[in-house]
């Protein structure tokens, strides 16, 4: 609700008056995308917001005086950093959860696939660089290292 209010405040009739029909349609679409970004799963937020930002940039290339696009673009830019962080963290979390499930299965079965284990170890090493203080990553790294390759 708060977001809808913001969007309405951002786009006044005076702003729209300076926009051609295509620009107005694009601004409406970008506004919808920003709403979708708020509603989206954390992992998808940044991508949806980025689509809105790109759409607004293209709108402004064609119609630089479209004030509604200018204002909405500034609004979207202001959201970018937070949504990027949210999505990135969620994407890392998804990798972590999937890796944990995989390691648990392999520990339980006593069977690992060499190539899959390689991919998993690379994933975890990369994750460790990004999240050096995350005890779950450290633990999972240790568990993955302890897994032997079964031919």
């Amino acid at each position: 609700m708060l977001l809808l209010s913001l969007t309405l405040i951002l786009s006044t009739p005076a702003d729209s008056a300076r926009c051609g029909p295509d620009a107005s349609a694009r601004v409406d679409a970008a506004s919808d995308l920003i709403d979708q970004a708020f509603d989206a799963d954390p992992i998808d937020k940044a991508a949806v917001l980025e689509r809105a930002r790109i759409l607004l940039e293209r709108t402004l290339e064609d119609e630089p005086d479209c004030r509604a696009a200018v204002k909405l673009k500034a609004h979207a830019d202001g959201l970018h950093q937070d949504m990027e962080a949210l999505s990135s963290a969620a994407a890392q979390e998804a990798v972590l959860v999937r890796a944990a499930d995989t390691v648990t299965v392999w520990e339980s079965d006593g069977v690992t696939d060499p190539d899959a284990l390689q991919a998993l170890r690379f994933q975890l090493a990369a994750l460790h660089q990004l999240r050096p203080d995350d005890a779950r990553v450290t633990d999972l790294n240790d568990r993955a290292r302890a897994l032997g390759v079964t031919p």
Partner: protein
Amino acid sequence: MTGLVLLLAGAALAQECDPPPEALGDLNAVISTIYDETSGVAEYCPEDLGRPLDMADADSRAAQLSADDRAAAAAMLVDAIGELGGEHTQATANAAGLIDALLGAAQADGDDLTALIDALLAIADGVEDPLLERQIAINLWRRGVDDPRVAALLEKFLPSEPDYDSIFADGRTDVSVMLRTGSDGFAYSDFEDAFARPGATLEKLDEDTHWRVTYQVAPDDPTLPTITYTIDIIKEGYSDKDTFVDMDNDDVQVTMFGDHSQLGTSLDRALGVAPDAADSTDFFWNDACKSKVFQSRLSQAYPQAHFVFTKDSEYFRDMPVSFERGLVALANRYDYDQMSRLVAAGSAWQSKNYVFPNDPQKLVFQDQDGDGIADAEDRIYDVAAAVENQGELASKAVHIANTYVGYSKAFVSHTARNDHDPEDWYRPDGLFDGEPGGPATHIETRTDAFGETKHFVAVNDELLEVDQTQRTALITADVATHWSGVIGWSERTTEIGAFLAGAAVYDVWGGRGWDSYVEQTMPGWELDHWDTAKFLDDHDFVTDEGIRKVMDHQKAQQE
């Protein structure tokens, strides 16, 4: 200097040389006059017109000329090559190279560049050989020239967006996508989730080998039409050869590949039978881990195609997500900067992993004229090398060495700058005239075309005669030795680490020349490469533990 004078041009310098072919008389006169007016390390003979210009020497001479003389020289060079045909491509390339040197000198002096840029654009406009046109364009890119005509020329070689006129030809809205992957990519990439999230439907035509996704993308821009993608996800084995069959297939608009790279060999079979489609502008997303190792060969096979490739690992996690976003970007007619932003948005870690066709970084991994020098640094088109294409064997090997060092924890974990691209420190730098059994490489540290300090690897030309595995292993060992010096390893650790790095190439590929490799890197070592592989980790990488085990093994032998 009062100006270049073309009286008796070339006579003084050419008296010990054979006269030039008649067609090259004017060009010979101009160049010999320039050389006569300047001093440098190279002695000029007309037959030099048939060999690549010494660019360092040309730079030195260009710097000695006045601004007026440089402009006059460029104009005379353009006139002199005006009527030359394809049989004199090297001479034309040398003239263009000389003007590039003049341009560099003019830039350094803060002179007006117009006449020199005009000259280069005039040559580019008239040449028959696309590689020479490309060379001139890349040289202008390297100069950072801000000119709309240059930007238009560069668009051919660093395209800002996909060829949408081809992908969506005649208003096409049903787009066919072919996505090929290997057994691991098929098994471990979560295509189902990646395409189910945005509402695509997935049909398993064959549970284990062939899935089909129908994905309708309504572009965010309401002025664009909805696109329906039919995506065939095919499992290929290493013996399959179909990866490139659609490069000349008008029924497939987008191609994607994602699987292991196998140190740059997993596409060898497919490349061996790839269809001839030099004019193809197809969009091809190559999402194998570190797929940069294929780029030199792919760009030679399909110089106009739009390849997206990775610098680092993709972990199978990135591939399906990136593909899905790439298709959204295409439906929205994004340019490559926008596509890159969407693919990277909120990703787990790989925000800079993909190299898009507009990114000059791709030139680091391309060697279009096959002289062994990365295109980003290569200022002169070598026509003979392009025919033989031997140097590409060396440049590919250097990139594989890069990749290998970047994979191995023993090298990475001791690296002071432990970032995500530790392997991209080494750049192909051509061939040198070496001896059989002599040093595999000469490595020199200097600034690259992007202003970064890198290590440039020139390769012993005798290595072109040996088996691919031996060549790559020796280069990898040399690169590892050099890197060990950078990170401060002891002499003994360096020797073992480097030896194991090359041994790993043997373990991945097999191949001939093991004894010779051992003789050059670890004299006295008696195990074959299969037994040596026991000192590598499960994935053929060098580790601290492996190096210690070799030391223990040698100690036990001595006792």
